[in-house]
């Protein structure tokens, strides 16, 4: 066991510092209350909330879930109470419990994102906005903004114009594109302070007894360790092109070694998603192991380790 009380775990997105490099991934931490039974949320860099829309959303019908080898498909469809009730119920509780909060937002149009940003700019206690432009569980694939460079740019510009001030904008991108570096370039030049890489990949499971797709929504987002190499690749490619833009890495992180791969590829921090489902204390485990593994390798801070896989 290596001891070094000076090990620096801080990460910075835009103008905001976070004390831990481990976050929860959007849609994988409930309202925060559910996980707080198992560890104090102050251990996290921040809780990234479920992606919230302007209006309530029922989400998709069930079955919504299929376990796959080292992963799962989900087809939740952004179920949520809408921004009004969310600001009334979820945010005050998180703030009162000293959790750092990054609100994830999801819209069906550029105007939706602009309206959501205007609502959030006056909310006290927030530490950032994640702009989810890449949820695969929407009826119309044309609504996956992150598949289109122009649409991606327009959404981030709209959020930038309306959020003002100090809140960092984190754009969440989809790996289901030909060139993720191009999309990253568009959102960075539109004003994104950081990138969340990656959202789930679109997948399908067929029930061979019923001879139909297993999910009621037919397709779902693939997550878990199965997609980790895709995430590491995306982080590596984007970091290679945009060294100064911090990346929040995610996609199958369940232990410290997984996190190190992402950090070495270019992530400044990691989010825990599907691993929360199998292990409610996964975030604590990852945080502890990141520190131990980096110390063993002679690093004194997270920032020293970011992107070292790119070194000649």
């Amino acid at each position, binding site marked *: 066991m290596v001891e070094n009380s000076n090990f620096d775990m801080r990460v910075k997105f835009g103008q905001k510092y976070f004390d831990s490099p481990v976050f929860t991934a959007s849609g994988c931490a409930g309202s925060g*209350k559910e996980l707080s*039974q*198992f560890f104090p949320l102050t251990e996290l860099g921040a809780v990234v909330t479920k992606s919230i829309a302007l209006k309530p959303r*029922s989400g998709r019908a*069930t079955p919504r*879930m299929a376990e796959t080898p080292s992963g799962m498909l989900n087809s939740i469809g952004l*179920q949520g109470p809408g921004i009004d009730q969310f600001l009334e119920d979820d945010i005050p509780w998180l703030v009162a419990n000293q959790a750092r909060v990054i609100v994830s937002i999801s819209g069906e149009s550029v105007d939706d994102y602009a309206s959501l940003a205007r609502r959030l700019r006056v909310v006290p206690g927030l530490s950032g906005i994640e702009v989810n432009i890449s949820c695969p569980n929407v009826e119309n694939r044309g609504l996956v903004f992150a598949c289109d460079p122009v649409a991606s740019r327009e959404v981030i510009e709209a959020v930038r114009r309306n959020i003002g001030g100090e809140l960092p904008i984190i754009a969440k991108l989809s790996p289901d594109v030909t060139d993720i570096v191009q999309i990253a370039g568009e959102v960075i030049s539109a004003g994104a302070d950081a990138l969340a890489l990656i959202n789930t990949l679109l997948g399908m499971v067929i029930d061979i007894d019923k001879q139909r797709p297993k999910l009621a929504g037919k397709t779902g987002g693939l997550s878990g360790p199965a997609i980790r190499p895709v995430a590491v690749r995306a982080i590596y490619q984007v970091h290679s092109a945009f060294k100064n833009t911090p990346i929040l890495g995610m996609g199958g992180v369940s232990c410290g070694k997984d996190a190190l791969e992402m950090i070495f590829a270019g992530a400044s921090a990691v989010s825990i998603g599907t691993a929360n489902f199998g292990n409610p204390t996964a975030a604590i485990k990852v945080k502890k192991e990141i520190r131990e593994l980096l110390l063993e390798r002679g690093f004194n801070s997270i920032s020293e380790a970011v992107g070292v896989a790119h070194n000649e």
Partner: protein
Amino acid sequence: MTGINRKAQQRSVEIISNKKVGAYHHMVFAVGDMATFAKPGNFVAISVGGSNSSMILRRAFAIYRSSDRGQYGGTIELVVAPHGQGSKWLTSLEIHDHVDMVGPLGVSFGIPAQPVSALLVGGGYGSAPLFGLAEVLKERGCRVDMILGASIAGKIYAPLEGKRSVNSLTVTTEDGSTGSKGKVTDVMPELIEKYKTEIIYSCGPMPMLAAVDSIAEQFGIMHQCAVEESMACGIGVCMTCVLPVKDENGVIKMTRSCIDGPVMDGSRVIWSSNRQIPEGTWGA
């Protein structure tokens, strides 16, 4: 929101017994003080497949019985049907093996304040949590009648010690291999009239719960059911185990069976929602 699993804990627990009973395995785990807080209707979620498993999701099991003191300290007992890869792995484990368990989870059965006449209806291994419930109801002075149904005799789970906690036990099988031939709902009306049932509790497959609920409605009897939807997390964060349920204001919402259930008021569940969001659902 009804509860946030305030008493839930995650710990490595030891298997102290694993016995095949008919189509199922009866398994006992030494769980320490996790047992203290377990109530009938609660469940546990167990990691399966070992540390290098490609099965990343926990499996949820209704608690059959719990005891907070004994030779092994606190124990939780489960009745496991080895259906899928995860439950087959679990039932293949041996005494002294350890598993990672989270529990107790979910909303338990509501217990009436007054002694009433209760009818407990279980399908297959769904009978498991009903025996613990029967004991609690008996302690409160309730009359407890039980109906257990399954497709075949081997899928009826009715151990001797369980039978002691009920006033009457009626068994039905679809093939008639034991008890009366047919479904649990075939015998319900007669028993309800005979024993003047005031509350119905049920646990089993969803089509059975739906059928039980329509009889409860017909007789105007309160019905608490433990619903069964496939779960990814069991702790309320993944939003996969939802089903359409009316809230106290009559608004239909996609509601988590893990944390707002599994025990629900049957009259509030929208049963006819196969692979669709019912019309009028909030946010649809």
